[in-house]
């Protein structure tokens, strides 16, 4: 979901000698979720980059030729859009994927069947990376039952779902019985 950026030109404020910081922050507060901010200023607003990074925005700056600068602040992928399994899921400690699957061309529930088949053959602690055409909503409870952890989200275009699955200890077989 890409949205049109909100455009804020602070050159008039700067030329009149006032501080545009508050106007910029008001604009940021008024952005829709996922909406970028396009800022036009009379200089390259370096101090603002770290302020905006702290609020979760990446920047892309370019000179406009006449000494003015245009900066596009784009919200980085929202953390809450990543869906993770319940409990302690610290992705930084996960190893690189040992297996990769592209399941985007399979109709449901075949992706779920393939993922569970591969996961059963992997070692505890290993990670599987899979691409799917849909969010595998019926897979999650089955992964949880078998003691696996997962994290997933859609790509920027919203067309491919990416999921990382870390294989849990082999207590899954017992869990299935209860």
């Amino acid at each position, binding site marked *: 979901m890409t949205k049109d950026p909100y455009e804020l030109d602070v050159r008039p404020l700067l030329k009149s000698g006032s501080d545009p910081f508050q106007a910029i922050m008001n604009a940021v507060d008024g952005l829709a979720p996922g909406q970028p901010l396009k800022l036009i200023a009379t200089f390259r607003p370096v101090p603002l980059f770290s302020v905006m990074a702290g609020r979760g925005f990446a920047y892309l700056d370019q000179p406009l030729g006449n000494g003015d600068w245009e900066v596009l602040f784009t919200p980085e992928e929202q953390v809450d859009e990543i*869906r993770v399994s319940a409990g302690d899921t610290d992705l930084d400690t996960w190893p690189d994927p040992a297996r990769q699957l592209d399941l985007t061309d399979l109709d*449901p*529930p075949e992706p779920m*069947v393939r993922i569970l088949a591969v996961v*059963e053959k992997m070692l505890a602690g290993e990670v599987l990376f899979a691409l799917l055409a849909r*969010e595998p909503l019926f897979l999650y*409870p089955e992964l*949880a039952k078998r003691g696996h952890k997962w994290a997933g989200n859609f790509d920027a275009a919203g067309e491919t779902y990416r999921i990382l699955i870390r294989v849990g200890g082999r207590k899954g077989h017992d869990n299935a019985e209860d």
Partner: protein
Amino acid sequence: MFGATLSRWTMSYFAAALIFLAIGEMMMVLGFGYPASSIDAPETLALVHTITLGWLSLLMAGALLQFVPVLVGRPLSFPHLGFPALVLLVVGITSLVLGFASLAGTEGLSPLLLPAGATVTIAGLALLVIVFAATLWHARPLPLPARFVAAGLGSLVIACLLGGTYAFVLSGLADAPGAIDLTLEGVSLHAALGLGGWLSFTTMGVSYRLLTMFMLSPDRERRSSRTVWILGAAALGMMVCIVPMILAGFAGRTTLLVVAALASVLAIGIYLADIVRIYRGRKRRLIELNSRAGIGAFAALIVATVIFVASLISGQIDKGVGPLVYLITFGWLTGMGLAQLYKIVPFITWLECYGPLLGRMPTPRVQDLVVETRAAFWFRLFYLTVAVASVALYLDNAWLFRASSLGQLIAVNALVFEFVATRRLSNVPSNLRLPGGPTGPHLFFPSFQSRRQP
């Protein structure tokens, strides 16, 4: 926790719904209600509510209990209300239908069954509205299909309030002038909000999601689909606005009704174009029977819309309303319901039986639970009887209608038999049938042990 689990009571809702459908079909075969009786006779009302509440609403409720979590990606709120709601609905709808039968002069039935049945039915529907509304509320911002469901639930609430009012007026318990005005003038609103808002609009929203899922079509929200929602919701909103206008005696109601009708027709037209695009844009070349059988339902919706527009233009809406409502109820809603049941029942059964075993031992595919060639014949017979019965109604030929209803009763019962075979895993090769142990799924009652979540 994200994700969707099996809905515990969905199969029970489906079983109750199919029983009501079979009863309704038998009423038509026996010549109970329209066209043997007039279109507003109590006999017809008994038949209409057996089908719209007993069959279609229970079917929709069961499907939503399973698929609202899929639409919004989070579990149901208050899932334990599903069972009490089902009990209230079965008791309430049965007494409501018997209440209509008592108005029709059936001996030994109290006319108080009508308001009592309406009250119990509304209580059951209220529980379901709480479940779905709370789930949707917690899932905001809603994806487009879920917004259709929200508008459908709103229509259901108003349709219920109107229906409850009629039940009290018709049984003589209420005689307030406003209630009588609503009974005299609001019946078409009650029908439009029930059939159009609750049943059709919700079906349209859910179909956007399920059809793209079953056929692997692009799943992006289209601008055209958003237009369908806006037009449809606006049309339903206008119909709701007519209720206070009737109470206050405002003029201009007909104009608003015509505008709402035009918006609905436009919405249906854009929706059907979307559906054609979903079928054409599919990645999957061979489609399964549920998607093929769905085409019959879309064809019925097209024909019904054309008849509706033609009778609006010619000003003969009163004459054409019988065949029109029949085509919407049986061709579009019942056809779509049976077609999607043919996918949902095997899928739920497969997940219930084989989900825990996947990857650990050989398991059948979902399609191993059905025999499409057999069911395809019954779907053809079903749509043929819908077509013949619609023509019979148009020609006012009660005998042809009863004969085609008999064919339809046979087709429906054969499909019920197919669903039972699926639940019993009868079509699965015996070496794959029950690799995990001796117990199969219950026919329509949840198995409590296997569904507990850790």
